[in-house]
């Protein structure tokens, strides 16, 4: 495999607060290659958004303690000065946020906002930038793009706004697109359109895509690799088939069992008991141990590392591999 486009090594993002140190991201490592889609799954507060905001250089709090390395095209982004980072962000890395209404400026025409992104990074005339904006709106499937470019965000529907956001983040042909819950605010039919669009554009531009979501269905359909996050750490990573057919971490099992599914009749959902931990007081040992049905003594003392089982499927759990396979097939698959 070629050199990965983005490689994150032992990234930690901690925020000191009056109540204590918030360990939002606590040592994550992964890589993404061009043309690949990485799915990041986790509940609120698992650190998935903060992790990628750090990659984008958007965690600007002066108090934040950031450690580790974010290597993008051979450069460590964490050591770059702000102005060089600004040249990369937008031009080489694009980001799509969850709520398209609050991430578009309500006072400016959509076309102008996209054009602004172009003019920030390239020396082009206003007219050229406007043409590029219209062309990009057309490529993301907005009908009558020249008319639409002159409209304001409030004249767009939810799905259209998200398309406009995608157009804005792709107009400079970035190598990496980070989509943070891109479809959470949208209806299913629109969600399907947007995800297909991201898929198609990834092929067209040969970009790497990261989809951050809490929806296991979305990642199953659109991602090559998946990583499951819990309390600031990656607890399991692998390709889609590993995660759905050979899951090895009790938290992943819990997620798979607690979702209602269209395709299978489930009598009763099996929720994960308890609540996600506070990131100030993460339980000692494995962070999932208070909620884990298979907890052992060692889980409360020693933090499990992410250990590969085969290929790049890895999980951070003290259970033995044979035990994990047995539980997954007997308890998880058989009953869900």
């Amino acid at each position, binding site marked *: 495999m070629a050199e990965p486009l983005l490689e994150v090594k032992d990234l930690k993002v901690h925020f000191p607060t009056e109540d204590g140190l918030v360990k939002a991201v606590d040592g994550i490592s992964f890589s993404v290659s061009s043309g690949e889609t990485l799915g990041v799954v986790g509940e609120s507060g698992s650190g998935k958004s903060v992790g990628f905001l750090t990659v984008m250089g958007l965690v600007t709090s002066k108090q934040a303690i950031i450690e580790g390395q974010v290597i993008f095209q051979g450069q460590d982004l964490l050591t770059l000065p702000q102005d060089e980072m600004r040249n990369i962000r937008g031009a080489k890395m694009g980001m799509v946020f969850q709520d398209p209404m609050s991430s578009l400026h309500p006072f400016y025409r959509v076309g102008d906002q996209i054009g602004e992104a172009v003019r920030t990074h390239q020396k082009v005339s206003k007219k050229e930038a406007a043409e590029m904006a219209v062309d990009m709106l057309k490529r993301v*499937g907005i009908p009558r793009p020249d008319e639409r470019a002159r409209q304001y965000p409030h004249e767009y529907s939810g*799905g259209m706004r998200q398309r406009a956001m995608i157009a804005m983040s792709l107009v400079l042909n970035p190598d990496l697109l980070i989509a943070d819950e891109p479809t959470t605010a949208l209806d299913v*039919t*629109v969600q399907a359109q947007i995800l297909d669009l991201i898929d198609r554009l990834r092929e067209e531009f040969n970009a790497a895509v990261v989809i951050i979501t809490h929806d296991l269905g979305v990642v199953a*359909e659109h991602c090559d690799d998946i990583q499951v996050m819990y309390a600031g750490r990656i607890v399991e990573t692998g390709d889609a*088939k590993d995660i759905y057919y050979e899951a090895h971490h009790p938290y992943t099992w819990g997620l798979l069992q607690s*979702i*209602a599914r*269209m395709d299978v009749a489930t009598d009763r959902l099996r929720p994960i008991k308890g609540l996600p931990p506070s990131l100030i007081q993460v339980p000692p040992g494995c962070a999932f141990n208070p909620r884990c049905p298979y907890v052992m003594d060692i889980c409360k003392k020693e933090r499990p590392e992410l250990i590969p089982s085969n290929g790049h499927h890895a999980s951070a759990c003290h259970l033995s591999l044979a035990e994990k396979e047995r539980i997954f097939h007997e308890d998880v698959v058989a009953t869900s």
Partner: protein
Amino acid sequence: MSVETTSQPAPAPQDGQSPLLQLVGIKKWFPIKQGIIFQKAVGNVHAVDGVDLAIYPGETVGLVGETGCGKSTLARVVMRLYDATEGQVFFQGQDITGLSGRKLRDIRREIQMIFQDPYASLNGRKTVGSIIAEPYRIHKTVPTDKIKSEVQQVMELVGLNPEHYNRYPHEFSGGQRQRIGVARALALKPKLIVCDEPVSALDVSIQAQILNLLEDLQAEFNLTYLFIAHDLSVVKHVSDRVAVMYLGKIVEMATGDTLYQNPKHPYTGALLSAVPIPDPNLASQKRRIILEGDVPSPINPPSGCRFHPRCPRAQLPQCSTEEPELTPHHPGQVAACYFPLQDRAIMAAAATPAEGDTGSEPVQS
């Protein structure tokens, strides 16, 4: 199953069982006004445009549809928070459409609601105890000195610690707040609970906890739910029957399994095929019906079948001139379509492409 297309004033009991709630020809239009001094109506938003629906005691009826299809408006008409423009709401055989004052209050005791956003629907300045006690104070079903013990009982029932009686909503997590909402709805021992997107603001693992709680409560108190959500997987899981709404009308209704296996209305098919399935192999077999464009404006709904401008199966001129009525298909299934989908049109057992319904994203480049 009784979705009647006639607007008879008297609800007709079917199968010997009379419905707990029956909606007959419900329309809710919101006038659009123009003018500063002399306001005149220049049009109407047809939010709900002729809905017939019967809900029987002890069952859960799911209501799905996209944003703006009128599902929340319908819920508010049922709650009598909006007055219907046309049509009648029967509760236990009694017409409650025109009730007011005391009689309305008596009915409200029987019909309660759980809201979507547990952060916005609880008063942040009141303690949990007084939030849950409010229904008792208003309806005076319990003597004042017994209220506290009643409230603590209800709290225990929904899985809240009764010792947290004096805490404020902000001290609770999202899932616990939704439990407070459930406790408040349950306080007066209602017969019908309208759940408007009760879990869509919650994390997946917490969603499952709330859904299980709702199920347990239903079994214990023989509750009837009208369950509104845009998440089809959740609706299918909780509901006995599911109604699909599009632009103010019910276009299809069936049991969850029938609907999933054999959707008849192309809109239902499109909705189902858009739901991501958490199973990579199955997901790749699924046949997709991709809808183009957005839901049309409910101010001027399309003529004939409202879905025809986006429908991959529409045949003109019939679909654009005549409005299809709900006709029976499988047992318990009705759909309003002239050219219904074949059985197993979405999740085919063998992957054979069907004519005309495999669409792809409109590429314009």
